[in-house]
Protein backbone atom coordinates (compact mmCIF):
# COMPACT_ATOMS: atom_id res chain seq x y z
CA UNK A 1 0.00 0.00 0.00
CA UNK A 2 1.76 3.11 -1.14
CA UNK A 3 1.03 6.72 -0.37
CA UNK A 4 -0.06 7.25 -3.98
CA UNK A 5 -3.15 5.12 -3.33
CA UNK A 6 -4.65 8.21 -1.74
CA UNK A 7 -4.21 10.08 -5.00
CA UNK A 8 -7.45 8.40 -5.96
CA UNK A 9 -10.16 10.96 -5.17
CA UNK A 10 -12.61 8.46 -3.69
CA UNK A 11 -10.01 6.94 -1.41
CA UNK A 12 -8.85 10.38 -0.44
CA UNK A 13 -12.40 11.34 0.54
CA UNK A 14 -12.79 8.20 2.62
CA UNK A 15 -9.51 8.78 4.41
CA UNK A 16 -10.08 12.46 5.02
CA UNK A 17 -13.59 11.74 6.35
CA UNK A 18 -11.95 9.53 8.97
CA UNK A 19 -9.07 11.81 9.96
CA UNK A 20 -10.75 15.20 9.62
CA UNK A 21 -12.54 15.14 13.01
CA UNK A 22 -9.22 14.32 14.67
CA UNK A 23 -7.48 17.27 13.01
CA UNK A 24 -10.33 19.65 13.79
CA UNK A 25 -10.35 18.52 17.42
CA UNK A 26 -6.61 18.76 17.90
CA UNK A 27 -6.45 22.13 16.11
CA UNK A 28 -9.16 23.67 18.28
CA UNK A 29 -7.65 22.18 21.44
CA UNK A 30 -4.16 23.47 20.64
CA UNK A 31 -5.43 26.92 19.71
CA UNK A 32 -7.57 27.26 22.84
CA UNK A 33 -4.78 26.07 25.13
CA UNK A 34 -2.04 28.03 23.36
CA UNK A 35 -3.93 31.30 23.00
CA UNK A 36 -5.36 31.32 26.55
CA UNK A 37 -2.01 30.33 27.99
CA UNK A 38 -0.28 32.95 25.89
CA UNK A 39 -2.71 35.79 26.52
CA UNK A 40 -3.48 35.32 30.21
CA UNK A 41 -0.77 33.24 31.84
CA UNK A 42 2.45 34.79 30.58
CA UNK A 43 4.05 37.88 32.09
CA UNK A 44 4.17 41.17 30.20
CA UNK A 45 7.42 41.82 28.43
CA UNK A 46 9.57 44.37 30.29
CA UNK A 47 10.08 46.42 27.13
CA UNK A 48 7.04 45.78 25.02
CA UNK A 49 4.39 45.39 27.71
CA UNK A 50 1.28 43.40 26.87
CA UNK A 51 1.50 44.17 23.14
CA UNK A 52 3.99 41.33 22.82
CA UNK A 53 1.14 38.85 23.22
CA UNK A 54 0.03 39.33 19.64
CA UNK A 55 3.04 37.16 18.86
CA UNK A 56 0.79 34.15 19.43
CA UNK A 57 -1.21 35.05 16.34
CA UNK A 58 1.42 36.83 14.34
CA UNK A 59 4.25 34.31 14.25
CA UNK A 60 2.18 31.17 13.54
CA UNK A 61 0.16 32.86 10.80
CA UNK A 62 3.30 34.24 9.19
CA UNK A 63 4.87 30.79 9.24
CA UNK A 64 1.80 29.22 7.70
CA UNK A 65 1.59 31.92 5.03
CA UNK A 66 4.95 30.77 3.71
CA UNK A 67 4.40 27.07 4.39
CA UNK A 68 1.11 27.15 2.49
CA UNK A 69 2.91 28.43 -0.59
CA UNK A 70 5.58 25.74 -0.23
CA UNK A 71 2.85 23.13 0.06
CA UNK A 72 1.21 24.50 -3.10
CA UNK A 73 4.57 24.34 -4.86
CA UNK A 74 5.06 20.68 -3.91
CA UNK A 75 1.48 19.82 -4.86
CA UNK A 76 1.89 21.60 -8.20
CA UNK A 77 5.04 19.63 -8.93
CA UNK A 78 3.28 16.36 -8.09
CA UNK A 79 0.43 17.31 -10.44
CA UNK A 80 2.80 18.20 -13.27
CA UNK A 81 4.85 15.03 -12.89
CA UNK A 82 2.35 12.39 -11.81
CA UNK A 83 -0.98 13.99 -12.82
CA UNK A 84 -2.82 13.16 -9.62
CA UNK A 85 -5.96 15.25 -9.52
CA UNK A 86 -6.09 15.40 -5.74
CA UNK A 87 -2.71 17.10 -5.74
CA UNK A 88 -3.82 19.86 -8.07
CA UNK A 89 -7.04 20.37 -6.15
CA UNK A 90 -5.18 20.45 -2.84
CA UNK A 91 -2.99 23.26 -4.20
CA UNK A 92 -6.12 25.09 -5.29
CA UNK A 93 -7.71 24.51 -1.88
CA UNK A 94 -4.65 25.75 0.01
CA UNK A 95 -4.37 29.10 -1.76
CA UNK A 96 -7.26 30.95 -0.07
CA UNK A 97 -6.12 29.61 3.30
CA UNK A 98 -2.64 30.94 2.54
CA UNK A 99 -4.08 34.34 1.63
CA UNK A 100 -5.96 34.56 4.91
CA UNK A 101 -2.80 33.58 6.82
CA UNK A 102 -0.86 36.27 4.99
CA UNK A 103 -3.53 38.84 5.78
CA UNK A 104 -3.59 37.84 9.47
CA UNK A 105 0.19 38.18 9.58
CA UNK A 106 0.07 41.59 7.92
CA UNK A 107 -2.75 42.92 10.11
CA UNK A 108 -1.42 41.62 13.41
CA UNK A 109 1.96 42.97 12.36
CA UNK A 110 0.45 46.41 11.81
CA UNK A 111 -1.37 46.29 15.15
CA UNK A 112 1.87 45.28 16.85
CA UNK A 113 3.95 47.78 14.94
CA UNK A 114 1.78 50.76 15.84
CA UNK A 115 2.67 50.91 19.58
CA UNK A 116 6.21 49.57 19.05
CA UNK A 117 7.45 51.65 16.15
CA UNK A 118 4.83 54.37 16.12
CA UNK A 119 3.68 53.42 12.64
CA UNK A 120 1.22 50.95 11.16
CA UNK A 121 3.41 50.19 8.23
CA UNK A 122 7.08 50.47 7.37
CA UNK A 123 8.76 49.32 4.17
CA UNK A 124 10.84 46.90 6.12
CA UNK A 125 12.13 43.97 4.02
CA UNK A 126 10.01 41.41 5.86
CA UNK A 127 6.82 43.40 5.67
CA UNK A 128 7.41 44.14 2.02
CA UNK A 129 8.11 40.49 1.23
CA UNK A 130 4.82 39.51 2.79
CA UNK A 131 2.99 42.10 0.76
CA UNK A 132 4.58 40.67 -2.40
CA UNK A 133 3.67 37.15 -1.30
CA UNK A 134 0.09 38.38 -0.92
CA UNK A 135 0.16 39.62 -4.53
CA UNK A 136 1.46 36.24 -5.72
CA UNK A 137 -1.41 34.50 -3.94
CA UNK A 138 -3.91 36.86 -5.57
CA UNK A 139 -2.52 36.19 -9.04
CA UNK A 140 -2.57 32.43 -8.45
CA UNK A 141 -6.18 32.42 -7.29
CA UNK A 142 -7.26 34.77 -10.08
CA UNK A 143 -5.76 32.44 -12.68
CA UNK A 144 -7.62 29.45 -11.23
CA UNK A 145 -10.85 31.43 -11.38
CA UNK A 146 -10.30 32.74 -14.90
CA UNK A 147 -9.86 29.43 -16.71
CA UNK A 148 -12.86 27.28 -17.32
CA UNK A 149 -11.36 23.88 -18.12
CA UNK A 150 -10.17 22.40 -14.81
CA UNK A 151 -7.19 20.47 -16.22
CA UNK A 152 -5.96 23.46 -18.20
CA UNK A 153 -6.35 25.62 -15.10
CA UNK A 154 -4.42 23.08 -13.02
CA UNK A 155 -1.58 22.98 -15.54
CA UNK A 156 -1.31 26.74 -15.93
CA UNK A 157 -1.53 27.51 -12.22
CA UNK A 158 1.11 24.88 -11.54
CA UNK A 159 3.47 26.51 -14.02
CA UNK A 160 2.69 29.89 -12.47
CA UNK A 161 3.35 28.50 -8.98
CA UNK A 162 6.75 27.17 -10.06
CA UNK A 163 7.82 30.36 -11.80
CA UNK A 164 6.26 32.48 -9.06
CA UNK A 165 8.25 30.63 -6.40
CA UNK A 166 11.52 31.46 -8.11
CA UNK A 167 10.51 35.09 -8.45
CA UNK A 168 9.24 35.22 -4.87
CA UNK A 169 12.67 34.14 -3.62
CA UNK A 170 14.34 36.63 -5.98
CA UNK A 171 12.03 39.36 -4.71
CA UNK A 172 12.92 38.52 -1.12
CA UNK A 173 16.61 39.11 -1.85
CA UNK A 174 15.88 42.14 -3.99
CA UNK A 175 13.79 43.68 -1.21
CA UNK A 176 16.52 43.03 1.35
CA UNK A 177 19.00 44.72 -0.90
CA UNK A 178 16.64 47.57 -1.69
CA UNK A 179 15.88 48.61 1.84
CA UNK A 180 19.47 48.48 3.01
CA UNK A 181 20.25 50.47 -0.06
CA UNK A 182 17.74 53.12 0.95
CA UNK A 183 18.54 53.67 4.59
CA UNK A 184 21.72 52.07 5.80
CA UNK A 185 21.27 49.83 8.83
CA UNK A 186 17.53 49.79 9.39
CA UNK A 187 16.70 50.56 13.02
CA UNK A 188 13.72 48.23 13.14
CA UNK A 189 14.70 44.64 13.62
CA UNK A 190 11.93 42.11 13.31
CA UNK A 191 13.99 39.10 14.37
CA UNK A 192 11.75 38.08 17.18
CA UNK A 193 12.46 34.42 17.55
CA UNK A 194 15.95 35.05 18.87
CA UNK A 195 14.85 37.29 21.70
CA UNK A 196 11.84 35.31 22.80
CA UNK A 197 12.25 34.03 26.35
CA UNK A 198 11.26 30.55 27.47
CA UNK A 199 8.08 31.67 29.24
CA UNK A 200 6.73 32.87 25.93
CA UNK A 201 8.28 30.11 23.91
CA UNK A 202 6.25 27.05 24.98
CA UNK A 203 2.77 28.56 24.48
CA UNK A 204 4.07 29.88 21.16
CA UNK A 205 4.97 26.34 20.13
CA UNK A 206 1.48 25.17 21.10
CA UNK A 207 -0.03 27.95 19.01
CA UNK A 208 2.16 27.09 16.03
CA UNK A 209 1.06 23.45 16.32
CA UNK A 210 -2.53 24.68 16.45
CA UNK A 211 -2.11 26.71 13.27
CA UNK A 212 -0.45 23.81 11.46
CA UNK A 213 -3.29 21.47 12.44
CA UNK A 214 -5.88 24.09 11.53
CA UNK A 215 -4.23 24.53 8.13
CA UNK A 216 -4.21 20.78 7.50
CA UNK A 217 -7.85 20.45 8.53
CA UNK A 218 -8.91 23.39 6.35
CA UNK A 219 -7.00 22.12 3.33
CA UNK A 220 -8.38 18.58 3.72
CA UNK A 221 -11.89 19.96 4.06
CA UNK A 222 -11.57 22.35 1.11
CA UNK A 223 -9.90 19.67 -1.05
CA UNK A 224 -12.89 17.45 -0.33
CA UNK A 225 -15.19 20.21 -1.55
CA UNK A 226 -13.16 20.65 -4.72
CA UNK A 227 -13.20 16.89 -5.37
CA UNK A 228 -16.98 16.81 -5.02
CA UNK A 229 -17.27 19.75 -7.40
CA UNK A 230 -15.18 17.94 -9.98
CA UNK A 231 -17.23 14.80 -9.47
CA UNK A 232 -20.43 16.75 -10.08
CA UNK A 233 -18.89 18.24 -13.19
CA UNK A 234 -17.73 14.85 -14.47
CA UNK A 235 -21.19 13.34 -13.93
CA UNK A 236 -22.95 16.28 -15.57
CA UNK A 237 -20.67 16.14 -18.59
CA UNK A 238 -21.60 12.50 -19.12
CA UNK A 239 -25.28 13.09 -18.45
CA UNK A 240 -25.34 15.68 -21.22
CA UNK A 241 -23.96 13.22 -23.74
CA UNK A 242 -25.75 10.07 -22.66
Amino acid at each position, binding site marked *: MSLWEYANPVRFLNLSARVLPVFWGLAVACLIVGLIWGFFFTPDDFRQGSTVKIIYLHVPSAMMAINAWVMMLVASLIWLVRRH*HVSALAAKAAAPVGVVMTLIALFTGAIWGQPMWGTWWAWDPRLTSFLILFLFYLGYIALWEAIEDP*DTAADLTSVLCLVGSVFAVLSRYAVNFWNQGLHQGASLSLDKEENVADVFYIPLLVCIAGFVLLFIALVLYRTGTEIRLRRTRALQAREG*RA
Partner: protein
Amino acid sequence: MVLEVRDLSVERGGIPVLTGLSFDLAAGQALILRGPNGAGKTTLLRTLAGLQPALCGEISGTQETIAYSGHSDGLKAMLTVAENLTFWAEVFGQKGIDRAMKAYALEPLAERLAGTLSAGQKRRLGLARLLVTARPIWMLDEPTVSLDTQAVAQFAQAAQAHLMSGGAALIATHIDLGLEAQVLDVAPYRARLDAKAGASDEAFL
Protein backbone atom coordinates in the same frame (compact mmCIF):
# COMPACT_ATOMS: atom_id res chain seq x y z
CA MET B 1 2.49 3.99 -45.16
CA VAL B 2 3.05 7.69 -44.48
CA LEU B 3 0.59 7.80 -41.62
CA GLU B 4 -0.45 5.02 -39.29
CA VAL B 5 -3.07 5.33 -36.60
CA ARG B 6 -3.70 2.47 -34.18
CA ASP B 7 -6.47 2.24 -31.64
CA LEU B 8 -6.59 5.97 -31.14
CA SER B 9 -8.80 7.73 -28.60
CA VAL B 10 -9.19 11.48 -28.58
CA GLU B 11 -10.70 13.79 -26.00
CA ARG B 12 -12.18 17.24 -25.82
CA GLY B 13 -12.48 19.09 -22.55
CA GLY B 14 -11.34 16.02 -20.62
CA ILE B 15 -14.06 13.77 -22.10
CA PRO B 16 -13.40 11.05 -24.70
CA VAL B 17 -15.00 11.84 -28.04
CA LEU B 18 -13.79 9.07 -30.34
CA THR B 19 -12.29 5.70 -29.41
CA GLY B 20 -10.73 2.77 -31.17
CA LEU B 21 -9.84 4.53 -34.41
CA SER B 22 -7.36 2.74 -36.66
CA PHE B 23 -6.46 3.63 -40.21
CA ASP B 24 -3.54 3.94 -42.60
CA LEU B 25 -2.76 6.52 -45.19
CA ALA B 26 -0.32 5.76 -48.00
CA ALA B 27 1.46 8.18 -50.28
CA GLY B 28 -0.89 9.42 -52.99
CA GLN B 29 -3.99 8.57 -50.95
CA ALA B 30 -6.66 10.83 -49.56
CA LEU B 31 -9.01 10.09 -46.69
CA ILE B 32 -12.23 12.01 -46.28
CA LEU B 33 -13.56 12.29 -42.74
CA ARG B 34 -17.30 12.42 -42.40
CA GLY B 35 -19.67 12.62 -39.50
CA PRO B 36 -22.31 14.94 -38.05
CA ASN B 37 -21.39 18.23 -36.37
CA GLY B 38 -19.77 17.66 -33.01
CA ALA B 39 -18.78 14.09 -33.86
CA GLY B 40 -15.13 14.88 -33.21
CA LYS B 41 -13.62 15.47 -36.64
CA THR B 42 -11.88 18.69 -35.58
CA THR B 43 -10.65 17.08 -32.37
CA LEU B 44 -9.27 14.14 -34.32
CA LEU B 45 -7.43 16.41 -36.75
CA ARG B 46 -6.00 18.56 -33.96
CA THR B 47 -4.81 15.45 -32.15
CA LEU B 48 -3.19 14.05 -35.29
CA ALA B 49 -1.54 17.42 -35.94
CA GLY B 50 0.01 17.23 -32.48
CA LEU B 51 -1.85 20.22 -31.08
CA GLN B 52 -3.37 18.17 -28.29
CA PRO B 53 -2.34 14.87 -26.72
CA ALA B 54 -4.16 11.65 -27.57
CA LEU B 55 -5.93 9.82 -24.75
CA CYS B 56 -4.42 6.54 -25.86
CA GLY B 57 -3.33 4.77 -28.99
CA GLU B 58 -0.49 5.26 -31.43
CA ILE B 59 0.08 7.78 -34.16
CA SER B 60 3.16 7.42 -36.32
CA GLY B 61 4.42 9.39 -39.26
CA THR B 62 3.35 12.85 -38.15
CA GLN B 63 6.78 14.12 -37.12
CA GLU B 64 7.49 17.28 -39.20
CA THR B 65 5.26 16.06 -42.03
CA ILE B 66 1.96 17.77 -41.30
CA ALA B 67 0.49 20.84 -42.93
CA TYR B 68 -2.50 21.66 -40.77
CA SER B 69 -5.31 23.99 -41.73
CA GLY B 70 -8.02 24.72 -39.21
CA HIS B 71 -11.04 26.97 -39.11
CA SER B 72 -8.93 30.12 -39.17
CA ASP B 73 -6.21 30.78 -41.69
CA GLY B 74 -3.59 32.57 -39.60
CA LEU B 75 -3.62 35.60 -41.86
CA LYS B 76 -2.54 39.06 -40.81
CA ALA B 77 -4.90 41.78 -41.98
CA MET B 78 -2.16 44.37 -42.25
CA LEU B 79 0.14 42.27 -44.45
CA THR B 80 -0.35 41.87 -48.18
CA VAL B 81 -1.30 38.55 -49.74
CA ALA B 82 2.26 38.02 -50.96
CA GLU B 83 3.75 38.94 -47.59
CA ASN B 84 1.46 36.53 -45.76
CA LEU B 85 2.46 33.68 -48.03
CA THR B 86 6.15 34.54 -48.00
CA PHE B 87 6.12 34.53 -44.22
CA TRP B 88 4.75 30.99 -44.03
CA ALA B 89 7.09 29.81 -46.76
CA GLU B 90 10.06 31.08 -44.76
CA VAL B 91 8.80 29.60 -41.50
CA PHE B 92 8.67 26.22 -43.23
CA GLY B 93 12.12 26.82 -44.75
CA GLN B 94 10.84 27.16 -48.32
CA LYS B 95 11.39 29.74 -51.02
CA GLY B 96 9.08 30.87 -53.77
CA ILE B 97 5.36 31.41 -53.57
CA ASP B 98 4.67 31.63 -57.30
CA ARG B 99 3.28 28.12 -57.68
CA ALA B 100 0.89 28.60 -54.77
CA MET B 101 -0.22 32.03 -56.03
CA LYS B 102 -0.93 30.54 -59.42
CA ALA B 103 -2.79 27.48 -58.18
CA TYR B 104 -5.39 29.64 -56.46
CA ALA B 105 -5.31 32.52 -58.98
CA LEU B 106 -4.05 34.93 -56.35
CA GLU B 107 -1.66 36.89 -58.59
CA PRO B 108 -4.05 39.82 -59.19
CA LEU B 109 -4.46 40.15 -55.42
CA ALA B 110 -0.75 39.92 -54.56
CA GLU B 111 -0.38 43.49 -53.31
CA ARG B 112 -3.77 43.71 -51.59
CA LEU B 113 -3.80 43.76 -47.78
CA ALA B 114 -5.23 40.49 -46.50
CA GLY B 115 -7.67 42.44 -44.34
CA THR B 116 -9.43 43.80 -47.44
CA LEU B 117 -10.09 40.37 -48.98
CA SER B 118 -13.49 38.70 -49.03
CA ALA B 119 -14.05 35.58 -46.94
CA GLY B 120 -13.63 33.31 -49.96
CA GLN B 121 -10.44 35.06 -51.07
CA LYS B 122 -9.03 34.72 -47.55
CA ARG B 123 -9.78 31.02 -47.60
CA ARG B 124 -8.00 30.65 -50.93
CA LEU B 125 -4.98 32.37 -49.44
CA GLY B 126 -5.19 30.04 -46.44
CA LEU B 127 -5.24 27.01 -48.75
CA ALA B 128 -2.39 28.40 -50.82
CA ARG B 129 -0.38 28.34 -47.59
CA LEU B 130 -0.48 24.51 -47.73
CA LEU B 131 1.44 24.57 -51.00
CA VAL B 132 4.29 26.70 -49.64
CA THR B 133 4.86 24.42 -46.64
CA ALA B 134 6.11 21.56 -48.83
CA ARG B 135 4.84 19.11 -46.22
CA PRO B 136 3.62 15.71 -47.49
CA ILE B 137 0.52 15.19 -45.31
CA TRP B 138 -2.28 17.74 -45.46
CA MET B 139 -4.73 17.82 -42.59
CA LEU B 140 -7.63 20.02 -43.51
CA ASP B 141 -10.63 20.95 -41.43
CA GLU B 142 -13.54 22.01 -43.65
CA PRO B 143 -11.29 23.52 -46.34
CA THR B 144 -14.12 24.56 -48.66
CA VAL B 145 -16.02 26.81 -46.27
CA SER B 146 -17.02 30.07 -48.05
CA LEU B 147 -15.45 28.99 -51.35
CA ASP B 148 -17.39 29.41 -54.62
CA THR B 149 -17.62 26.53 -57.13
CA GLN B 150 -14.67 27.81 -59.12
CA ALA B 151 -12.46 27.99 -56.04
CA VAL B 152 -13.60 24.54 -54.94
CA ALA B 153 -12.44 23.27 -58.32
CA GLN B 154 -9.09 25.03 -57.85
CA PHE B 155 -8.75 23.35 -54.48
CA ALA B 156 -9.68 19.91 -55.87
CA GLN B 157 -7.12 20.40 -58.61
CA ALA B 158 -4.39 21.43 -56.15
CA ALA B 159 -5.23 18.47 -53.93
CA GLN B 160 -5.14 16.12 -56.91
CA ALA B 161 -1.72 17.45 -57.92
CA HIS B 162 -0.51 17.05 -54.34
CA LEU B 163 -1.61 13.41 -54.28
CA MET B 164 -0.12 12.73 -57.71
CA SER B 165 3.24 13.98 -56.52
CA GLY B 166 3.25 11.50 -53.66
CA GLY B 167 1.51 13.53 -50.97
CA ALA B 168 -1.36 12.43 -48.78
CA ALA B 169 -4.37 14.24 -47.41
CA LEU B 170 -6.81 13.90 -44.56
CA ILE B 171 -9.83 16.09 -45.17
CA ALA B 172 -12.88 16.70 -43.03
CA THR B 173 -15.57 17.90 -45.40
CA HIS B 174 -19.19 17.49 -46.39
CA ILE B 175 -18.68 18.43 -50.03
CA ASP B 176 -17.90 15.94 -52.76
CA LEU B 177 -14.57 17.12 -54.07
CA GLY B 178 -14.39 14.67 -56.94
CA LEU B 179 -11.21 13.22 -55.51
CA GLU B 180 -10.59 9.54 -55.56
CA ALA B 181 -10.56 8.95 -51.84
CA GLN B 182 -11.51 6.55 -49.11
CA VAL B 183 -14.21 7.76 -46.75
CA LEU B 184 -14.04 7.32 -43.01
CA ASP B 185 -17.26 7.94 -41.12
CA VAL B 186 -16.28 8.73 -37.54
CA ALA B 187 -19.80 8.29 -36.11
CA PRO B 188 -19.36 4.56 -35.26
CA TYR B 189 -16.25 5.38 -33.23
CA ARG B 190 -18.13 7.74 -30.95
CA ALA B 191 -16.92 7.13 -27.41
CA ARG B 192 -19.33 5.37 -25.09
CA LEU B 193 -19.66 7.11 -21.79
CA ASP B 194 -19.47 4.11 -19.54
CA ALA B 195 -16.29 2.92 -21.20
CA LYS B 196 -13.07 3.31 -19.30
CA ALA B 197 -11.53 5.29 -22.09
CA GLY B 198 -8.95 7.00 -19.94
CA ALA B 199 -10.67 10.37 -19.64
CA SER B 200 -8.97 12.81 -17.36
CA ASP B 201 -11.87 13.04 -14.93
CA GLU B 202 -12.66 9.30 -14.72
CA ALA B 203 -11.02 9.12 -11.33
CA PHE B 204 -13.85 11.20 -9.95
CA LEU B 205 -16.65 8.84 -10.97
